């Protein structure tokens, strides 16, 4: 086992462990946990089975295995950014609705009689 394989597999095992702990504490949904674990287990597999990765890349018309990894990483990153934007937008809309409802429910008549400096 090379040093890079040792280093990468240690990091990935740590990610898998943290994911499992988060799931057990109820912080992650079953669907997300499954997809996330599948992703990292696949990465772990390809670290040790690089010939399979190269064959998969060739099958898709990509010359190097590492290029396939980079393409997939870029696609995944863009997808995650989109999801984050989407979630942020939803949260923003909910916050807006709450603040609006509170404002509309508490109108203040400000007749000149109520003058205060």
């Amino acid at each position: 086992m090379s040093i890079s394989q040792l280093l990468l597999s240690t990091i990935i095992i740590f990610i898998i462990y943290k994911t499992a702990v988060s799931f057990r504490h109820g912080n992650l949904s079953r669907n997300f946990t499954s997809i996330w674990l599948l992703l990292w287990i696949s990465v772990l597999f390809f670290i040790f089975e690089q010939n399979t990765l190269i064959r998969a890349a060739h099958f898709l018309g990509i010359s190097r295995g590492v290029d396939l990894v980079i393409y997939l990483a870029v696609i995944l990153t863009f997808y995650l950014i989109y999801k984050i934007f989407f979630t942020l937008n939803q949260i923003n809309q909910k916050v807006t609705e709450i603040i609006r409802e509170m404002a509309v429910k508490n109108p203040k008549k400000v007749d000149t009689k109520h003058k205060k400096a």
Partner: protein
Amino acid sequence: MNSLRIFAVIAAFNEEKTIAAVLSDLEKYVDEIIVVDDGSSDKTSTLVKGAKVTLLRHLSNLGQGAALQTGFEYAKKQRANIVITYDADGQFKASDISKLVKPILQKKADIVLGSRFLGHAVNISLTRLITLKLGIIFTFIFSGLKLTDTYNGLRAFNNKALHKINITQNRLAHASEILDQIKAKKLKYIEIPVTVIYTDYSKQKGEKNLNALKVFVDLVTRKLY
């Protein structure tokens, strides 16, 4: 003259320098004024006064679009017949309101849009002029509406338009969103000449050309979801 209830909705964020004068000018021309204090950190809310004035307060700053929609929701509850949107920075002339309301009273339009380029843009800077002209082209490309002015905050909505328009763009992109909805919901609109007076204060408050870029980014990202 007419029994229709005319409301003005003002979104105000840190407008302590102008809000009192704006309200005092406006009172002669409308039946009720709704000021939405959009989380101001200055004395705006304490300076909002008047027999016709109702103050709504956002606990946090959401943006002009969100504040206007809050005002619309309250106006709907109060059964307003016509709603005017009006800026708090003192750029508008309250006397333009009579002209703004007229096409609605004559049932010629659901929405009346003020146009500074049909009327007067007093003391406008060159950069602001160019930005607004680009906005007109942008609006024509994206919403298909051929207008002479696109980011003018002086507008009038009849009851039908008030119920059909729903502003979801919290910040400055709401102006484009309103135009998109006019087109999508097939509302009758008309432009009328109004006067916009640029003061040092209003320039300092609103004239950031970077805002145009923010509006563009808001509109494009919103289209993605």
